[in-house]
């Protein structure tokens, strides 16, 4: 199961290496969103710094949605989903493979966004361990939900407008938890931050189980 999952993930990452969608398009878009926030808040650095944790996760949310869309569009073109369904991979392997591929691509994206945050919004990370833990776990939760809903909407016409509507209510707790934990890690709040990483872990676990169970029926017919 894990062998096949790694195969699927590796294939997605090779596609990214050849096409440079994350590096060439989505990451610059993320930085652009940060700049636009600067306009929206009238370049008030103090305000931007206070809101930086939330703005980071909002930027991740919207650019990440594009990534989820992309990772399933790759399968829809040229009937590839049929080939994947015939491949003999377990549906669970395909789910995990998609999740791993998304995680790696999101890390690339978030790296660019963190640089942008430090440069544009003048933030300093006071607790790197919490910062990294929240980022990593938030990415896990995001990817798991994204893979589940990406498959749910894949192959249906009008999916590109439907996917955000389905996914954002589910990602709302991820956004909330990630933002609160980062506020603490960036020294903007003194509330307990590690609780929120625990919540992210729970969300990841719940949606991983849901994805493992539901990918079978989802790939049965398309």
């Amino acid at each position: 199961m894990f062998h096949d999952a790694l195969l699927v993930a590796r294939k997605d990452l090779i596609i990214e290496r050849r096409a440079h969608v994350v590096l060439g398009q989505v990451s610059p878009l993320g930085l652009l969103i940060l700049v636009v926030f600067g306009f929206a808040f009238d370049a008030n650095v103090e305000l931007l710094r206070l809101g930086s944790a939330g703005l980071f996760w909002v930027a991740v949310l919207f650019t990440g949605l594009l990534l989820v869309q992309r990772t399933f569009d790759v399968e829809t073109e040229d009937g590839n989903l049929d080939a994947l369904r015939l491949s003999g991979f377990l549906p669970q392997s395909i789910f995990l493979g998609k999740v791993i591929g998304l995680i790696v691509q999101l890390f690339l994206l978030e790296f660019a966004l963190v640089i942008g945050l430090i440069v544009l919004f003048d933030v300093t990370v006071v607790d790197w361990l919490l910062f990294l833990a929240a980022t990593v776990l938030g990415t896990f939760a995001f990817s798991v939900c994204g893979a589940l809903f990406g498959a749910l909407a894949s192959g249906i016409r009008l999916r590109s407008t439907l996917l955000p509507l389905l996914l954002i209510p589910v990602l709302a707790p991820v956004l909330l938890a990630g933002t609160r934990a980062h506020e603490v890690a960036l020294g903007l709040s003194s509330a307990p931050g590690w609780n929120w990483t625990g919540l992210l872990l729970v969300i990841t676990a719940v949606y991983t189980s849901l994805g493992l169970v539901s990918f079978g029926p989802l790939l049965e017919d398309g």
Partner: protein
Amino acid sequence: MAEVSDQKTPKSKKSMSMTATPATRVLATVSVGASLVLLLLALIVSPADVVQGDAVRMLYIHVPSIWVAYGSFGLTACTSGLFILRYKRRADRGRHYDRIAGAAAEVGVVFTGITLFSGMLWGKVTWGSYWQWDARLTTTVLLFVTYLGYLALRRLPADPGVRAKRAAIMALVSFVNVPIVHFSVDWWRTLHQKASLSVGRRPEITGDMYWTLMYSALTFTFVATWLMIHRYRVIRLEEMRDEEMLQQQLRERRSENSL
């Protein structure tokens, strides 16, 4: 996937074009009658609140609506679960469960909308603003949007069998999501000390108010059940129309041979 058989559905055109039966007519009469009595109880018999005055009467719409909505979404989740477990073995490919899930979700969304709308009006009167970022309100609005998404998924152009399966998965995921959202929002609002949770005092519900509320819940349940049964039958009629078209197309398809 529609039930496929070579026999024509043995129902006359007339009985197919109606969604009411004697039983639902009784239910309708009871629902309408009970609603009228509710008006009387809520507006006249039950007392005004000491602090909130007449605004408290919003309670009899606001609270039962969300109870009914929760019940409906629970029903959607149950029937979606049954769909996933049984669609392979059932002769109708789980269409029965799919119809209940769809009808219940529609009713649930309507009643969630009523709760939100009445809550905002009530809030404006008692808190002075339409909206408070408290856990219940935030969860409810996310619940509303989640099930709007579910209904949007049900309306997409796709094979009915595929769509039913995806809708069932979506319903189960949404059901799991509700407590996660509630918990996280709750935590968010309690960890932030500066936000005060209770602007305005919750009315103490006793005596006549209590009984009116309970009666209101019962009335709303009747109305919701009545709506759901009719929605179920309309969905079934739509499917029967599709089924008739399918039979006709099967005949035409087969006659392509003899050309």
